[in-house]
């Protein structure tokens, strides 16, 4: 049995928010343990002073000194969890600077999170799982080529996707809205197999990801059941043919968003979810519905519009829809409204989430929303860079899962 992954906890306010147990439970669920790096009072005084960020809260001073102990190797860890209270400006500055400091000065994977008393272990689970995967499965994540015949299934909150790969090529795909998790999974598997001209007996290894990964993983007897942060990173750099060096992966999903700073295909810092539906793909679905068009038509429509003409920038899907209705009532064109909706989502993600990671070019957008050109354009404008949308970008999770699952084909042969 492998030893638990040791996650260094750098937090301020977790115990007083009543969420310490949730953090520990989330770590335990993925066979990891959280611990506070042990330092002396002298280390605290010296390392806080030398870091140079003169915050007032003693717990933040302690967090800074503990981060230095990790980077200098005085305390050993496999990964780092940085957390502080939501809405604390002082802690937000520390969180950002420490994440950057650790990322630039060590190979430790880092995730940061701002919690409230409502934060549960379930919310933290995917983040902890990603941290442990990066720490434990570096060899698997280093895989750059798909071999054999493998299947990846991504059971997302809005859609379920399946990809079948053979010798480094996608030969079958399936896509369905997620209704009943298992039924949707069966449908996409069937479609992908039909397109590939194969049967289940031909599949040598299976990987699952997304919210329904555990359920469908059990159903399909999958070799790999993996959270979407590492799988999507891998899928993105693989499809964008950018497996070496830095990259940033952005996936605006139906229920939550992922922004991942990647080095050589392995996530370094990442952020996931945490903001409201006004900044998700769900808002774009609502917009398309209100405009009476299919979601696939929203992107081209937005490309013809001028988003600046319409005031729309809410985190909240209800307020966002209100702005949308008001704009239409005031005579705005559907093109302008579509463009404004895309800009609004991009802006929320930019302001709320992309500040949590270091943006390193190239920026790769993936997931179903990356097919909405208006959204990609808006994000490119905000980041002032040209965004890469790889082929099969809507199948990113399934592709990443199929690619990583091929590691098990080799193992089976051995």
């Amino acid at each position, binding site marked *: 049995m492998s030893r638990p992954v040791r996650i260094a906890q750098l937090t*301020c*306010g*977790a*115990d*007083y*928010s*009543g*969420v*310490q*147990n949730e953090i*520990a439970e989330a770590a335990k669920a993925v066979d990891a343990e959280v611990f506070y790096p042990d330092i002396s*009072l002298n280390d*605290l*005084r010296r390392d806080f002073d030398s870091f140079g960020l003169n*915050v*007032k*809260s*003693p*717990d933040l001073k*302690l967090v800074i000194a503990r981060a230095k102990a990790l980077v200098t190797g005085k305390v050993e860890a496999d990964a780092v969890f940085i957390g*502080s*209270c*939501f*809405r*604390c400006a*002082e*802690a937000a500055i520390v969180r950002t600077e420490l994440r950057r400091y650790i990322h630039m000065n060590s190979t430790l994977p880092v995730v940061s999170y701002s*919690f*409230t*008393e*409502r934060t549960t272990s379930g919310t933290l689970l995917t983040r902890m799982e990603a941290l442990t995967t990066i720490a434990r499965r570096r060899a698997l994540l280093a895989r750059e080529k798909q071999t054999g015949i493998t299947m990846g299934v991504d059971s997302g909150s809005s859609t379920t996707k399946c990809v079948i790969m053979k010798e480094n090529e996608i030969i079958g795909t399936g896509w369905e809205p997620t209704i009943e998790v298992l039924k949707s999974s069966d449908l996409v598997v069937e479609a992908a197999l039909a397109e590939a001209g194969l049967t289940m007996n031909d599949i040598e290894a299976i990987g699952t990801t997304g919210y329904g990964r555990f359920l469908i993983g059990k159903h399909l007897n999958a070799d790999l059941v993996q959270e979407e942060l590492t799988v999507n990173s891998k899928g993105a750099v693989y499809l964008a043919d950018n497996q070496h060096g830095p990259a940033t992966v952005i996936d605006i999903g139906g229920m939550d968003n992922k922004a991942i700073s990647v080095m050589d295909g392995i996530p370094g810092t990442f952020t996931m979810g945490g903001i409201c539906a006004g900044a998700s793909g769900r808002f774009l679905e609502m917009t398309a519905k209100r405009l009476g068009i299919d979601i696939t038509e929203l992107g081209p429509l937005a490309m013809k519009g001028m988003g600046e003409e319409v005031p729309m920038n809410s985190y909240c899907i209800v307020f966002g829809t209100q702005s949308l209705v008001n704009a239409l009532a005031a005579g705005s064109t559907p093109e302008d409204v579509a463009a404004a909706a895309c800009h609004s989502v991009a802006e929320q993600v930019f302001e709320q989430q992309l500040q949590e990671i270091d943006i390193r070019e190239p920026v790769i957008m993936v997931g179903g929303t990356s097919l909405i050109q208006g959204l990609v354009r808006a994000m490119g404008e905000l980041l002032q860079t040209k965004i890469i949308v790889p082929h099969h970008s809507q199948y990113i999770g399934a592709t990443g899962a199929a690619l990583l699952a091929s590691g098990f084909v080799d193992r089976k042969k051995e």
Partner: protein
Amino acid sequence: MAKVFIYPATSLMLSDLVARYGHKPLGSALSVREHIQAGGFDSPPLQITPEDPKKGLHWAAVEVPSGVRGRMSLYGPLVEEADAAIIIEESDFAFGCMGCARTNELLIFLLKQKGVPVLELSYPKTKEEGVTFVASIRTFLAELGGEKA
């Protein structure tokens, strides 16, 4: 005997001084002990559950970070109970330390608002300052009517 809120609330030396002069120190030991001894709590290490930051809403609004409200659920009742307070500013970590600067600002404000006698001192940096420091605390406590040690 007066109930004296001590700041930093974790300072054992301050707590001891107040007790020696016949008063009841109100600090972390009291509120944390209550949490540890109460049955049914399971959130280590301070036995604080997500219910506590909600109790803290009595002293700080919902937009105030949960950690501040969680702390206020411990210290707020003590502030309400206090007949007097001793506040040591900029103290050394070893003397006693409270983790959140925002909570500390709020606590000091609430103590001053309360209108009870408050002794505010800077943490001593020399031996001479240390002697004056202890003497000031002794005088303050004596004026509160406690018994001398």
